[in-house]
């Protein structure tokens, strides 16, 4: 596994350095977004996110960015590789296709985190603002991204079989936004539990939300378990689906088709 990680990491670094404009523009966008949060934070703390502080907004936004990457990256990557004619050679590597694309998606997340962390560090120094957050929030943040990987693996499975995914990607964004907005935490009883278990991301996001709130969180153990089970379900299903799509694509002889 390390050689796969090393190979993909080196490729990511080369790409970052070879095409600095992309890296720079991404950093500039991040800077604009976070600067808005830092200097307009008093608007946010007042209303819609009520009770979530600056750190909460920053982490929430970062997680959302990573979720979009995790859910969309593998599908568009497979489509691009098919279009460029490199997908067959990638699938001729001594790894499972799902391993390769998961590692690449991980690298994409790391690639996004680097400018985000740099910009954040810069802004904290610049504004003297204090970010108050509990390290515990990292756990639901990671669970959220891993769940999003489950969706990403499913998108990748579709991409491997159908190749043309641009429209799907657009719809994915809306679907994810919708799913995250479902107020599962507010729903009680069986309906809430079932919905929470089936819908991706909602439980993880509500746990994340709770750990980020200013008030000391009272998160029930059940909600943690639910978040973990939901994550395992979606990631497992995604992993299984991409493996199945891999076999099916080879059976149909459409690995390199575009």
């Amino acid at each position, binding site marked *: 596994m390390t*050689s*796969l990680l*090393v*190979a993909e990491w*080196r*490729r990511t670094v*080369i*790409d970052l350095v*070879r*095409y600095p404009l992309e890296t720079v523009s991404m950093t500039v966008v991040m800077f604009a977004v976070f600067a808005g949060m830092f200097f307009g934070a008093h608007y946010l703390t007042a209303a819609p996110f009520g009770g979530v502080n600056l750190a909460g907004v920053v982490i929430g936004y970062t997680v959302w960015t990573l979720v979009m990457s995790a859910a969309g990256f593998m599908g568009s990557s497979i489509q691009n590789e098919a279009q*460029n*004619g*490199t997908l*067959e*050679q990638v*699938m*001729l*590597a*001594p*790894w*499972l296709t799902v391993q*390769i694309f998961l590692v690449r998606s991980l690298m994409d997340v790391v690639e996004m985190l680097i400018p985000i962390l740099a910009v954040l560090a810069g802004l904290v120094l610049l504004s003297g603002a204090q970010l108050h957050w509990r390290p515990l929030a990292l756990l639901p943040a990671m669970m959220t991204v891993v769940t999003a990987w489950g969706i990403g693996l499913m998108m990748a499975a579709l991409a491997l079989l159908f190749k043309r995914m641009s429209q799907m990607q657009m719809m994915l964004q809306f679907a994810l936004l919708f799913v995250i907005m479902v107020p599962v935490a507010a729903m009680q009883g069986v309906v809430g539990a079932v919905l929470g278990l089936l819908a991706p991301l909602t439980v993880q996001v509500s746990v994340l939300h709770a750990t980020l709130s200013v008030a000391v969180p009272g998160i029930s153990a059940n909600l943690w378990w639910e978040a973990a089970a939901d994550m395992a379900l979606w990631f497992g299903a995604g992993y299984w689906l991409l493996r199945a799509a891999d*076999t099916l694509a*080879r*059976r*149909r*002889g459409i*690995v*390199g088709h575009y």
Partner: protein
Amino acid sequence: MLMANGLVKRFRTRTGLTTAVDNITMSVAAGEVLAFLGPNGAGKTTTIKMVAGLIRPDRGQVVVHNMDVTGRPALAAARLGAVLEGSRNLYWRLTCLENLIYWGTLRRLSPSEARSRAVELLRLVDLEQCQHNTVQTLSRGMQQKLALCQALMHQPKLVLLDEPTLGLDLVSAQVIKAMVRRLAGDGVAILLTTHQMDVAQQLADRLAIIRSGKLMLTGKTAEVLARYSRPVWRIAVSHPLPADRLAAVRDLGWSIEQPTPADLLVTPPADDPTVIYRLLDVLRPQPIRLVQRHQADLAEVFRQVMAEGEALL
């Protein structure tokens, strides 16, 4: 090194099921070059991809280096290298060296092993001066040479080449051919497809000709060529031969065809390599420009095998 047993592949198309590969069995030994020939759509690429694990056969086994890799693409991939037809095989945004190092580490070399192997391969194919150019700036021939290096990074014992010299100039094609010979000399088994019969004839130890997914002919190149060569001699003379000489030749029991007055195609009564001396004795002292026993080339064999296939249908 490679054993393919009874490979069958059918594809679902709009018009129903088409059988792309129909019960193909073949093997390639270490150090051997097998040329896989056939007209467009014969099933060559499909067979190569089945061996590589990119297409899963409906029936049959693929055994690489004593390991059954059928339906286990990651295992197959670790044991072979492939340059695929019409596929780019490389990342355009990376340089030659970066590409080779990437594909090498992806195949489990350490970055430093990959680097030294890459430098060595680039030198072998005359690309060392371009090692820091991105692939998008390379010519077709350079890309193809690089794609070959890419397939060789992990020193596979089996190499699959789908139309490796397609669209290459003489010099680039020569480099690829030299690499193929070198690999075979190092004990690598090579399966290649081509539509260029001269390339196949120069490189292949053995031939497999397929048509509509069916194996039509296999055999050692030299034996196949000999089998399709006819016991006919071509004699070219400077001036048309006098009629009495021709009659004397016929008296020896030879049959004569005369495509042009200065060109004779003569068939001896018995196929004996020394039979030509008797003919030459009869022709003495007529001036002769050329004496040649008919030698089939692969293009001729191929045409004939295709025609025989036609007749069978």
